[in-house]
């Protein structure tokens, strides 16, 4: 349930932005979440809606769109590129939970399937971004 703290970050940021742009209503927030972190979308959506409820009319009916970005890792030693399923299928529950909290500890639990190195670049699929914020102007 640390999805809640991320949801707070999203709502605060969107409202700040909307007010700066002098919007009168926030109609939509488009969010991109990296697959690496394995955010539970149900919980995240629930948190977002609960937090929005506290923010009054300005965010009444704000639509939330969530897009998951696939993880792509690239080995710095051999250049091999690999993705989500190959990573998660072989992880234990505790390893997954550790990565859920702190995505960078993937470097502890995942290695290049081709050469065994833990020195890889996270090309895509890490972090949390707001892609766009839409609203009404008076």
């Amino acid at each position, binding site marked *: *349930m*640390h999805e*809640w*703290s*991320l949801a*707070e*970050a*999203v709502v*605060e*940021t*969107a409202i*700040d*932005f909307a007010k700066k742009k002098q919007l009168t209503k926030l109609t939509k927030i488009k969010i*991109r979440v990296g697959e690496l972190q394995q955010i539970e979308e149900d919980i995240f959506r629930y*948190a977002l809606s609960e937090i929005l409820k506290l923010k009054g009319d300005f965010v009444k009916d704000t639509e939330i769109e969530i897009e998951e970005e696939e993880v792509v890792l690239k080995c710095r030693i051999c250049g091999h590129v690999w993705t989500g399923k190959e990573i998660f299928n072989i992880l234990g529950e505790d390893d997954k*939970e*550790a*990565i859920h*909290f*702190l*995505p*960078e*500890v993937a*470097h*502890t*639990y995942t290695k290049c399937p081709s050469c065994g190195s*833990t*020195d890889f*670049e*996270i090309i895509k699929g*890490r*972090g*949390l*971004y*707001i*892609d766009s914020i839409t609203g009404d102007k008076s």
Partner: protein
Amino acid sequence: MIDPRKNIIKERLESIKRIVAVSGGKGGIGKSIISTLTALILKDDGKNVGLLDMDFTSPSTHIILGQEKLPFPKEEKGIIPLNIDGLSYLSIVSYTQDNPTPLRGEDITNAILELFAITRWGNLDYLILDLPPGIGDVLLELLVLTRKIEFLLVTTPSSLSWQTFIKVVRLLKEQNIPIIGALLNMVNSSTYGFEEKIISSGVRYLGKLDFYRDLERYIGKPDEIMDTAMVKELKDILEDVL
């Protein structure tokens, strides 16, 4: 594309009265031991204290506190720090245990951002940050994420530590970050004039800690270490400034 995590950090740190980063640049000068003991001293004085281990390759504070393994912190609308010896405590060790975690600078930057965005420290009088050696991603990203921070600097009476100490001082001064003062650690017979050097660098000289030959015996025994002469010395030094 906005990263919303940066935005929430101010709110996350709002309930903390003072954030004290322990640094000095060089490795092995006693940052971890001093930050841990400082946290324990303040807690024994009745304060609400947090301790965050920001050294991701050589996390040490959990060992000083006698914790071989660390459980996951609880989740409650974010992450709730562990309670270790009465300290609100967080270390990457909860997530890595004793496995190697080879992080590049970019990974470190991301990890710090995530930790600061999701941790709920609650009401604290002090949050002590144990920094890694170097003027690298950890120190720099910290200054990106918050300016509500003061530095407690450490150096040893060695020309090798001094070179980096003075660089850290210049960096912090150029950016107007408050420096509480500097502590001279591991003093054997002589201070080799480093007391004067600290003063002439424009940093408040806080005092010296002797080199304790048998300190290793107390690592992992926080209750026993609190009765040592070293902690007594440190208490005297910190009294006026924290």
